Structures are given as structure tokens and as C-alpha cells.
């Protein structure tokens, strides 16, 4: 499945691994914070209006 990367396998795989890890990390954290803040603002606004 994985192409033969020869003697540079570690370099290539670590480049892809770190990229996916960092991009996945910032996307996951941003999404989690977006959901949390959205729910928090809605809760406070409901409390104020109610």
C-alpha cells in the first residue's frame, strides 16, 4: 500500500505525520472552542432574556 520510499522513508513519513498531526490538532482545538463558546453565549443570552 505505502510506496517504496527507499532510504528516505523516515524523512518523508515524518514530514507527513507532523503535518497531519499539527493540522488535525489546530482544526480539532478550533472546532472544540467554537462549539463551547457558541453554547456558552447561547446559555447566557437565554438566561438574560428568560
Amino acid at each position, binding site marked *: 500500500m505505502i510506496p517504496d520510499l527507499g532510504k528516505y522513508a523516515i*524523512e518523508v513519513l515524518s*514530514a507527513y505525520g507532523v503535518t497531519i498531526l499539527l493540522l488535525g490538532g489546530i482544526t480539532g482545538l478550533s472546532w472544540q472552542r467554537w462549539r463551547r463558546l457558541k453554547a456558552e453565549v447561547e446559555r447566557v443570552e437565554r438566561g438574560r432574556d428568560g
Partner: protein
Amino acid sequence: MSIWEYANPKKFIATTTPLIPWVFGATAVCLVVGLVWGFFLTPEADRFGSTVKIIYVHVPSAMMAINAWAMMLVASLVWLIRRHHVSALAAKAAAPIGLTMTLIALWTGAVWGQPMWGTWWAWDPRLTAFLILGLFYLGYIALWEAIPDPDQAADLTSVLCLVGSVFAVLSRYAVNFWNQGLHQGATLSMDAEENISDVYWFPLLFCIAGFVLLFLGLVLMRTGTEIRLRRLRALERQAQRITA
């Protein structure tokens, strides 16, 4: 209709929230196509061997690290000139994404440089300017966190952004300014003779599109978060005044 309508936080959130899933959907398509095509289906290059596959993550991340700063510069100028809060918050929202892109470009550059140049790092003009840009990202994020008053923080970080733009430009053009160092010139060129071979170019285009769309989706989402955080603090202050 004017672009300044979106300086209204409510309008910004109402307009961008439905767009976010579409932007992330397009991001996923471009990244999957580009990375799978580039990693699995492109041949080794004569000079680079299989390390040529690093191009699909190194070039788009380096490009976006510089372009994110350019976007922050425009947003900072809008804040300084027109005092639109959304633009200051968009610049703030973009900084961690730009820092992430910088870290990816530095790491992928180091692991590519080691087998090709025989060293992980060189104090080459382009690399040094890029490292300084990364430090500016850290300083920018730290400055936002260090100043409690958001308007004052927006003013000072905007000035820092203007100063840091020198290094964003140098990261891009240092090779042209000082004809020395290990790093090659631009990978992409409008000149067909200078541009990389089509077999690498087409998957790279998908990867670049994927990184641009990911940046856009994250900026929209994070700007919405910053607007909500600001709103939450205003509501809390209001509640405190009522109870006092």
C-alpha cells in the same frame, strides 16, 4: 451592498456560519486528492529521490505561513484605519494558524534539508527570515494574551504585525535579494521552463488549494469564536452592573 457590512459582528457570524461546512468539505476533497495523488502516484525525482514527496506539505505550508501574515497585515491596517473590531479579531484568529503553518514548514524543510544539503538547518537568508517570522507569530500571540484591554491589544499587535511584515516579505524574496544560501528560489513559476514538471505540479495545485481552503475555514471559525468571546465578556459585564 458593501464589504463593510461584514464588519458588523452579527452579520459576519450569520453569513459565515453556513459557509464553514462547505469550506471544510472542499478542503477535505482538495487535501485528500492532492496528498493521495502526490504521495502514492507520483514518481521519485532524479535529484531528490522519494523526498520530492515532501513538496506537497512543505510548499503549501510555507506559502500559507507567509500569506497568513499578509492577511493579518491587511486586517490590522483595516483596524488601524477604520476601527472595525471584526478585522482585529480576524487577525488575532489567524495568528495560531499561521504559526502552525510555520512550524510545519520548518519541520518539513528540516527533514528535507538533512538528506539533500547534509544539514537540518543553515543560517541561510530565507530560512533565517522564516524563523524570525515564526518568532513574530509567537510574539504576536503572546502580546494579545498579555494585554487585558482588547482595543489596546489590537492597536499594539497591529503595529507588531506591520513590523513583522518585513520578515514575511524577506521569507518570500530573500533568495532574490541575496543571491546566496542553500535554499532554492521559487518552486512555482508562471514560466513553464522554470516551473516544476507537470507530474508534480497538478497534485501540488490540489494541496495548495486544500491549505488555502483550510486556512479560510479555520479563520472564519476562529473569528466567529473570538466575536462570541467578546460578546460573552460584554454580557458578563452587563450582568455584573445589574447585580451591583
